[in-house]
């Protein structure tokens, strides 16, 4: 049985040249021959220490960076991203109501009353009260802002989301709430996630499968239970040992 895919990444290699004035400087490889799939409905964790290329991979998938080799194939349209820092992901010049309606204005398929209705609906899904619509982002707490970011990312109804450390800037209690929210939304809205994190506990709670990355290479991938119970690669064992 072939499962339906939302994303295929095949042999992606990516790097950059050191800036030189007269000629290109030395080449640094950030991603090396990265290959994986994300299946419909799953939350795929991506773990590895910082500087290992996780964010570059995210940027490559979203076409912010062109890979030097390999291909990224999306099977869904308009994938969205949830960022780590809930302070810089919301435009400070506008109210929450405007921020949530803007993706629908850009999408351009709905009239004003329908847009308002969809904003209300999404606000309910992320469990925020109606009063926040007239607030500016700076008037909200970190957890509330991350809920608004999630709502803004989801309001165009994408099927695939990249979440780059979405809870690591939040308090532990708020973290648990947001993780539960993401899980609920996955079921309600048929979402698939690439969930980037350095926190193995969070990955264990949330993800179905996990990729372990080191120095731009995927060293191990598989179901979360398998990886956590029977790690094959040395690096995965080190990571797990460090987390205990």
């Amino acid at each position: 049985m072939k499962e339906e895919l939302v994303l295929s990444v095949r042999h992606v290699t990516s790097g950059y040249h050191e800036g030189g004035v007269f000629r290109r400087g030395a080449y640094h490889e950030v991603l090396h021959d990265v290959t994986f799939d994300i299946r419909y409905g799953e939350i795929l964790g991506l773990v590895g220490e910082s500087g290992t290329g996780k964010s570059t991979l995210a940027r490559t998938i979203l076409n912010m960076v062109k890979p030097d080799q390999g291909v990224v194939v999306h099977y869904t349209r308009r994938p969205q991203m949830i960022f780590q820092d809930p302070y810089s992901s919301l435009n400070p010049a506008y109210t929450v109501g405007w921020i949530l309606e803007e993706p629908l204005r850009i999408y351009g398929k709905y009239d004003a009353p329908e847009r308002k209705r969809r904003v209300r609906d999404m606000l309910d899904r992320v469990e925020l009260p109606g009063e926040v619509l007239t607030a500016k982002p700076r008037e909200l707490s970190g957890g509330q802002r991350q809920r608004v970011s999630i709502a803004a990312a989801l309001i165009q109804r994408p099927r695939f989301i990249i979440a780059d450390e979405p809870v690591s800037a939040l308090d532990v209690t708020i973290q648990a709430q947001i993780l539960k929210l993401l899980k609920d939304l996955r079921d309600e809205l048929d979402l698939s996630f690439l969930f980037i994190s350095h926190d193995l506990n969070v990955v264990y709670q949330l993800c179905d499968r996990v990729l372990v990355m080191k120095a731009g290479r995927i060293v191990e991938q598989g179901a979360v239970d398998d990886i956590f119970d029977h790690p094959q690669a040395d690096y995965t064992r080190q990571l797990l040992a460090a987390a205990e």
Partner: protein
Amino acid sequence: MRRMNGYLKAGLLLTGFLAALIILGYFWTPYDPTAMAVGPKTDAPSLAHWMGTDNFGRDIFSRVLKGAGMTFAIALSTVAIGAVCGTAVGALTGYFGGVVDDALMRFNDALTAFPSILLALVIISVLGPGSKYNVVLALGIVFIPSFARVTRTAFAALREVNYVKSARLMGAGNGRILAVHILPNTMQVLLPAITIGFNNAVLAEASMSYLGIGVTPPDASLGYMLSEAQSMFTLAPWYAVGTGLVIILLVFGVGLIGEGLQRRGNEVA
């Protein structure tokens, strides 16, 4: 609306008062500002002539009202040209970077290398002297580089910010990102720059008219009147004092607004 601070309040009050006087001056002045012998020649300030009269017996207060109107209009149009064109250049160079950035900013550097009055002088001599519109155009062009520089930095910094990345992922075009998502967030640097630019424009216009390359009769600006006042300084010192005072108050008021805006910006950041 965010909190007002003392600078902002005082500046708005002073500038508002002057603006009201100037607007009044467009419709009504105590005497015809160009009519001669409405009073005795070189008469000291009195109840009938608040700032006295000049050597032709013209009412100086009426002339200052009209002249301030001219100066205000020139400074405003100059800043409008500089801010609109400068922001457009800054947005394009800061946002897109690359070759556009290099080409436009090196041209910008070249413009900045000349002293602004000298540059305006060159432009005036190309356009033809003696017209207030050419003064506005010349000064406007001179003011573009400073606005371009200030806004370029802001646009370049905000290009990579997460909410702009999000907007791009959602399918917003470059025009929408520049005008709707980034521009409002550059106001914190743009508004103080506009107030500073306005003051520089008032002073630049005054210097040019004082040097005789600005507005010409029958138009009169505060700068032109200062050069008139110089020739009769011993006979009617109140002419220079009245005119100079209005320039100082105008610049001071707008300067206060700029300071207030900057402080308010810093509080938020």
